[in-house]
């Protein structure tokens, strides 16, 4: 199945509903749309935050996400996938990133979205810095995110190298 795939790295806001419609408009084979939106929370470890600033590696961010989108399209029968990830300074309540997966049936759409999120967390070259009470600190990577990404590699050669 030829999958319609879109990956964008941008500072501007996005409209997740509009992105889903871009894939499904005019088709009758799309039976399931899953959307995930990551949003900037107003607290980090119980303390209020002023903002998150996302740094990224231009060029690598796009190609790394595109490679995982291609892998998702190879593993599940997807009609379309869109991933948009923002960079720059975001205040609580703003959207950080989104994934849309479209398939004929829900299992593929759910699983592919879950797979993409787990890989984005651990392999897409983005780094979050938190502004809190006048000080800035870098968010530390979580071991559970590595474990979540690892579960997709069981019985398969590692996709990385």
């Amino acid at each position, binding site marked *: 199945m030829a999958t319609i795939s879109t990956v964008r790295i941008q500072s501007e806001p996005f409209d997740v509903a509009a992105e889903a419609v871009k894939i499904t408009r005019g088709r009758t084979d799309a039976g399931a749309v899953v959307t995930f939106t990551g949003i900037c929370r107003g607290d980090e470890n119980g303390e209020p935050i002023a903002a998150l600033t*996302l740094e990224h590696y231009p060029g690598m961010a796009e190609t790394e996400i595109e490679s995982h989108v291609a892998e998702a399209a190879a593993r599940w029968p997807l009609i379309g996938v869109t991933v948009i990830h923002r960079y720059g300074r975001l205040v609580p309540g703003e959207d950080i990133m989104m994934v849309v997966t479209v398939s004929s049936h829900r299992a593929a759409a759910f699983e592919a979205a879950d797979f993409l999120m787990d890989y*984005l*967390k651990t392999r897409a070259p983005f780094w*979050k810095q938190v502004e809190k009470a006048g000080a800035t600190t870098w968010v530390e*990577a979580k071991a559970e995110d590595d474990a979540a990404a690892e579960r997709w590699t069981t019985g398969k050669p590692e996709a990385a190298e």
Partner: protein
Amino acid sequence: MSRTLKVRYFAWVRERIGKTDEDVDVPDSVVTVADLVTFLTARGEEYAYAFENPKVIRAAIDRKHVKPQTALGQATEIAFFPPMTGG
């Protein structure tokens, strides 16, 4: 003999070194990514600070993830950064 590599730094690795990128003359004795970390660490205290715990440092050659034992080969660009926290 040596060659020039473009080295890029991100997040707190960039902050500790105080540069976003630089061209580095790399001697032929530097073969792997781990060798390059050792070579850079000797360049000054800001590098030693950035690379004080090499186990947490991630690297990419020509915009693809690599491991410490990966050979630099014909690389033109290498990046060093902390574990990623996107999504």
